[in-house]
Each structure stands twice: as structure tokens, then as C-alpha cells.
């Protein structure tokens, strides 16, 4: 980041390659829409690029960028919900182009299993989407981004006990919604 502050484009691009996928997935899981996630991820990096001069290495860069991503996603969701036009995708992204090769490959899962897997993904996605914003954010940061309680607390700008409380309530909520998915676990 300090190299980026000096105006180098190459370090910024390597920073982008390192974090883009993580931020993209974080936003995608939060907003539930692929194209919106793409736009917001670009917004995050534009924000990072433009505020590189004012960046002080007080917090870890990772926490800083997740905070920007969180703020932009929340703003977008609130804007959308005020317009009452939010629509969650029904697609299962991992199923694109993955089903046919699996059917042709004798070692792969059967079509039936793939469909069952897609169904599970869909249920998990809906369960996460149904959580309140803060709980959803905490779950994504903990379960998918593997952040520590302290890092989540910094990102969500709350205390560590508050993060633990959010996660406990989220677990309670997910338990009821994912009852049917848990056959294989």
C-alpha cells in the first residue's frame, strides 16, 4: 500500500489481484447478486485507489478494505431497499458449466447428486440472506473469510463480545433454517 501511495500502478494491480476475489465473494455473499457484487467490488478498489494518499497504516490493510466493502454494500442495500427493488438471484453460480462434464465423467457425481448439491447451496444461500445485516456480515467474515474476532470487530466497528453475540445469534438462526440440508453432515 505504501508503494501505491507513491503512485505506482504495478503494486496497485498486484494488490488488486491479491484481494479482488476475496472482496468480490464477500460482497456477493452479502448482497446476493453477481453483477451488483462486480460493480461494488470495482467501487471498493476505486475508493482504495483514490484514498491511497490518506491511508495510514494504523489498521491492517485487510481490515481497511473489508470496512470499505462493508460500507459500500450496506449503502447499496439500503438504497435498493428504499426503492423496494432488491431481487436476489436464483442462479447457482457454481452449477454453470459444471453439470455436463460431471455427467460424462464416470468418476463424478451423478446428476441427481449434483442437483441435490445445488439445492443445498440454494438453501444455504437463502438461510444466510435471511439473517439480519450485522449477523450476515459477521457470519461471512468468520466462516468464509476466516477473519479473527478482533478483525471482525474492527471491520464492523464494534467490540469483540458484540461480534461473539452476533455469531451466537446467527448460529441459532441458521440452525432452524438449515435443518433439512444437514442430512449428509
Amino acid at each position: 500500500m505504501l508503494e501505491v501511495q507513491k503512485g505506482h500502478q504495478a503494486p496497485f494491480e498486484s494488490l488488486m489481484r491479491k484481494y479482488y476475489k476475496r472482496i468480490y465473494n464477500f460482497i456477493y455473499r452479502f448482497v446476493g447478486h453477481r453483477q451488483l457484487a462486480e460493480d461494488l467490488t470495482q467501487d471498493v478498489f476505486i475508493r482504495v485507489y483514490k484514498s491511497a494518499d490518506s491511508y495510514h497504516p494504523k489498521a491492517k490493510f485487510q481490515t481497511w478494505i473489508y470496512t470499505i466493502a462493508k460500507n459500500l454494500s450496506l449503502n447499496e442495500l439500503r438504497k435498493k431497499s428504499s426503492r423496494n427493488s432488491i431481487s436476489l438471484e436464483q442462479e447457482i453460480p457454481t452449477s454453470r458449466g459444471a453439470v455436463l462434464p460431471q455427467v460424462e465423467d464416470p468418476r463424478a457425481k451423478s446428476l441427481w447428486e449434483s442437483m441435490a448439491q445445488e439445492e443445498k447451496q440454494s438453501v444455504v444461500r437463502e438461510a444466510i440472506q435471511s439473517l439480519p445485516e450485522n449477523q450476515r456480515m459477521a457470519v461471512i467474515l468468520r466462516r468464509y473469510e476466516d477473519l479473527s474476532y478482533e478483525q471482525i470487530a474492527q471491520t464492523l466497528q464494534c467490540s469483540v463480545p458484540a461480534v461473539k453475540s452476533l455469531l451466537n445469534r446467527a448460529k441459532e438462526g441458521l440452525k432452524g433454517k438449515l435443518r433439512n440440508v444437514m442430512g449428509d453432515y
Partner: protein
Amino acid sequence: MKCHEIKELLPAYSNSDVSPEKAMEIGEHLKVCEDCLQEYNLIVKSWESLDVWPDIEPEEGYVSRFWTRLSAEQTWRERVMSGMKNLLAKRALVPAYAGTLVAVLVAFLYFQVPLSKNRPPEMIIEEDVDFVESLELTEQMDILQEMDWLEDLDVIEKLDAV
């Protein structure tokens, strides 16, 4: 603790986020209470089941899309500043910048040298004479302005006349 109290603590227990004493008590309770054990397994398994939602890949070309979008969003001033910044950041160009700076400095010093040095001697003498003359005139004017005592002389003359 009773079952409902244990159940309230199960999410925290699954995070290893309860005191060692409570953890021991909950552990002992789960050995004997089928209902609470089932509840605990549901919490653990639902958390594990989140794995079925894998990461997705961003569309290719996101880096070039980023630069295009940034360029479209920047004002002309931001673009100029950004270009300058990029130019200054290139270390290979440091000798060129230094050379240019030295050239500008030399040119500045050259033109700062008094132009009189390049003039013929007679012109310098004329210029100096003019300067000295005007200086003398100014001094005389100053002396006249400071001659308040002349007013006193007028008064004495008038007294004599009376």
C-alpha cells in the same frame, strides 16, 4: 443448569466461548440429555453446512475494467495529477529530472546577472552621472524641507521692521 439454560449457551459453547466451569457442566449435561445433544449437533452441523456455498470466480479482465472505469470517473484535474504522480514515481527518469532542474537553475542565474555588465563603458558613466545628480537634488530638497529655522528668521525680520 436446566435444559433451557444449557440450550441458550450452546451456540457460545460451540465457539468455545464459555468459561471452563460452564463448559464442563454443559459437557456433562450433553452426555446424559439426548434432547440437548441433538440441539448441539444441529448447531454444529448447520455451521459446517455453510461450506456447500463455494467461492465464485470474478469475470476475467477486471483489472483493465478497473482502469477504464477509473479513467471515466476521474476529472481532468485528477487525471493530470495522477499522470504527474506516475511520471514522478518512475525512478529511471530521476537523472532526466535532475538534469532539467540544473539547466533551469543555470538559466535563471544567467539572466539574473546585471545587464549593465554587457553594456559599453560610456553608457555606464552617463547612467551613473544621472544617478548622482538626482541623488544630490534629492538631498538638497531634504535640507530645504528641514529648514524650519527660516520661518524664525522671517519673524525676526518683521520685528525689526516694526
